[in-house]
């Protein structure tokens, strides 16, 4: 398991990273936790000429959960998020999702930014940032910064709105109001990636009327997506079993071409997405997962 030869650089500043990514062009690849990239290199499924290691850039590996919006540096590891008491208080969906990723060794190395930028159609973070309606902040040439809404970020299988030479640097999340959240995941039994993963975030008051709903679904389509029709069916409605069941039926409405492989057919994935959408919504609404 030996990769093809490549150049390796570990710059100390973001500017140097961006200029290296720019100058090496399509042959360059940013290295974050390496949990997806290194296996691909070892199998020689990819052979970039230049790896740019982000590990020495200061400030990317941080969690700021006190502010609104919550800010998470792209190099924050899954384990940091899983272990963060501040996040558990401010946005418990994030630690819950983090704990579902791979195993502890993977979570100690892998990063939220790396996962989002890799845009694996079965990764967990895309579901979470979609449900939370996050903003993904990218840095580009000449100190340019732009903010991309999560709903615009995922554009196909391993494809994102990041243009060449741009780097994802931060994830910003509006602090959720009163309510609840949950992540339901069906793991592919070998890899642990999602065959279907549903992240749900609900804001509601004592009257149990839904003020805001966010549902992100991963593992089912070419890229993670928001279940917009299901969200709409919930907002303004009483969060009871009947409404949740009906909304969940709309969860996969827009998926025409579901993923299908030896682990799960498209039809089964769509079914799982609806079943687990209901379970995630029930839990987020403070009900038990099964009716």
């Amino acid at each position, binding site marked *: *398991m*030996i990769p*093809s*030869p490549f150049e390796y650089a570990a710059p100390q500043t973001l500017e140097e990273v961006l200029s290296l990514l720019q100058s090496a062009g399509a042959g360059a690849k940013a290295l974050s936790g390496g949990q997806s990239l290194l*296996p691909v290199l070892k*199998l020689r499924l990819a052979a970039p000429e230049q790896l740019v290691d982000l590990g020495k850039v200061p400030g990317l590996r941080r969690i700021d959960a006190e502010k609104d919006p919550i800010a998470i540096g792209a190099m924050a590891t899954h384990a940091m998020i899983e272990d963060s008491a501040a996040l558990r208080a401010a946005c418990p969906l994030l630690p819950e999702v983090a704990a579902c990723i791979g195993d502890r060794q993977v979570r100690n190395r892998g990063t939220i930014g790396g996962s989002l930028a890799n845009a694996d159609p079965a990764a967990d973070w895309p579901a979470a940032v979609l449900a939370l309606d996050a903003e993904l902040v990218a840095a580009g040439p000449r100190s340019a910064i732009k903010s991309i809404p999560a709903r615009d970020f995922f554009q196909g299988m391993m494809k994102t709105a990041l243009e060449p030479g741009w780097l994802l640097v931060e994830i910003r999340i509006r602090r959720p109001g009163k309510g609840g959240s949950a992540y339901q995941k*069906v793991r*592919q*039994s*070998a*890899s642990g990636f999602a065959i279907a993963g549903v992240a749900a975030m609900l804001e509601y008051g004592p009257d149990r009327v839904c003020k805001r709903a966010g549902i992100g679904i991963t593992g089912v389509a070419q890229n993670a997506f928001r279940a917009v029709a299901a969200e709409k069916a919930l907002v303004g409605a009483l969060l009871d079993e009947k409404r949740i069941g009906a909304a969940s039926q709309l969860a996969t409405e827009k998926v025409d071409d579901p993923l299908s492989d*030896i*682990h*799960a*057919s498209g039809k*089964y994935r769509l*079914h*799982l997405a609806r*079943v687990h959408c209901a379970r995630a919504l029930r839990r987020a609404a403070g009900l038990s997962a099964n009716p």
Partner: protein
Amino acid sequence: MNAREPYVGRRIKRTEDPRLIRGLGQYVDDLRFADLHHVSILRSPHAHAKLTSLEVSKARSANGVIAVVTVDDLDRAAVGDVPCGAVLAGMKKPAHRPLARGKVRFAGEPLAAVVASSPGAARDALDLIAVEYDPLPSVVDPETALKPGTPVIHEELETNRAFDWSVSSGDVGAAFKSAARVVSQRIVHQRLIPCSIEPRGVVAQYFPGARQLTLYTSTQIPHLVRTMLAGAIGLPENHVRVVAPEVGGAFGSKLNFYAEEILLAFLAMRLGPRPVKWIETRTENFAGTIHGRGQVGTIEAALSSDCRILGVRYRSIQDLGAYPQLLGPAIPTLTGLMAAGCYKMDSILVEVTGVYTNQMSTDAYRGAGRPEATYQIERMMDIVAKEMGMDPAEVRRRNMPGPEEFPFKTATGLTYDSGDYRRALDRALGLVGIEKLREQQRSLRDQGRLIGIGIASYAEICALGPSAAVPAGGWESATVRVEPSGKVTILTGASPHGQGEETTFAQLAADFFGIALDDVAIKHGDTSEVQYGIGTFGSRNMAVGGTALLRAMERVVAKAKPLAAHLLGAPSADAVTFSEGAFRAAGKSISFAELAAAAHRAASIPEGFEPGLSATASFEPKNFTFPFGTHICVVEVDRETGDVSFLRYLAVDDCGKVINPMLVDGQVHGGIAQAIGQALYEEAIYDEAGQLVTGELMDYPIPKAHQCPRFETDRTETPSDVNPLGVKGVGEAGTIGATPAIVNAVIDALEPFGVTHVDMPLRPEKIWRLMQKEGTS
């Protein structure tokens, strides 16, 4: 001296574990050599193709490359074939060159090897080898392989049919004619990938002056590898040393002799004294190390009106893969011999056909033929129970031989040594609380929940075995060397690689000599250190190797007694007793350590006493041993998704006398985990073109800790009379008993849907589809 509690029978932690869990184990890849060169192997991407050209000159001239070899080089040096040690009567056996000649027959078949100064240079050079293939249609399905018009994989054999083998007794035809009820079920034992955590690896070094070759290899059978290697490369056997260092799991996959072992030896001889190294990648391990199972068959049973088995017919096809590896063809014969399970029956007919396909070879994988036998008869018992409206436990109990019937002659001609099958069954039923459990199942079913209870009773064959019935001989050896200080070194011909004999053999020896556990060292795996032996497989180490050890220890004491008599002033050795670490006679005593010192100092020895204190013995078992037990599994199936979760898992195993209960539990735990793998998750899938779709751990699901329930283990203890220790073996029982228990439980849970059988693995989607199709009754 106070008598201390014996070590045997105690839950003693494995003495090998501290080094392993601290990363101090020395596996092949950890060994350090000066001037080491690295080997990379070019493998066929095609499952079936003619080789029209293989051009290596560009790779030969690449930076860092010192040699590139193909089959032409092997032919010129008269290097032998990869041997098969289990050529059945009338079997059609193809030549198996270590590197492909003219044609490739499975995806992953080695074509060429590169030696270079670094692993990277060796790997890069593979891309410089130009191969032209003329692809042929692949034969993947073993049943299709037999059909007329299917491409023939080995032209010289003119057929894909390798052999037909059968075993029978009684009048099966009459049994089926007179039966009150006949049941039949087609059963698929899917191909599995053994997946040891350490893949294979070889380092070879040859000193031309001494004509001495050393092969370090991750194997279960160093001595047998030495014999076969010497034959394949044309060196005298006493010029070959094989070392199995720490071996990180094998499960039967290293009970073999592989092309790469021949290849590395050949390269070492060509490049000596430079050592050469090859460490298998996981991709290579999946593609080019043997697979397990791969049998498809139909079992039929003829029953009397009171549910007694009159006869069993089992016809199956064994997928051998492209080439018969060391023991591959013998595996389905073990299925045949164990086809009667733990039951009495008047007649049986087993017919097995072995076929070649364009896939990796199948061979021994934990249980090796017996999981197939147990699975099909235990599925059958459940089907019988459902058909006849009987309790599955009662169907089993009714057909089991009673304890008074042992030694019990089976329908297939084996003699089961000892057993009390109903006792293990009843104990399992009692411990699990079967009546209450059935009640709970009924009430939860009324609430719409799908609870299933699965029972599997098994008898299996261990302690391989009488030499006449084992391809390479079935005896085992031990040397006991008492050092001048009284410390004891034991050299075992077995080759433990996770079974824990460094602990259990030391327990035996420490008790026998009355010394501390720490005073015993167990050595194994190096053919120049250890006398010839057979190796580790078929749950044989304690029953065969442990008995050899016992014999050697007895010889040591017999040798010591005349010296003790001399030193104690006793009239003869007969007057000397040995117990609790001391030789006693005439009211005096001398400790074991003192005697060891005197034996080596030899300043005062009796007439005829040879200085030193050591002995070697070997043990030839007169029969196999037959462990047994009953496993009970309770599951819940998620009605919405088809997902299976465990509610309980209970195993009552009888492996004869127990040396270390903790290690027995460990073996059972690991075995059940692997059974969970086969029952619920694992399947080596080749597509129609012969490509291994489950080619990596990302796609081949071995069970993880979180997928295993808490295991409740319990035992009955029925000693074997095949060996003086009374032990039977426990390495494979978990896998054998658990697979049908789990599947029976899931199918029981699906009873409301009218499901009577589902082939493994029971992945959620398969179950969900069945529930969709059948609808609730």
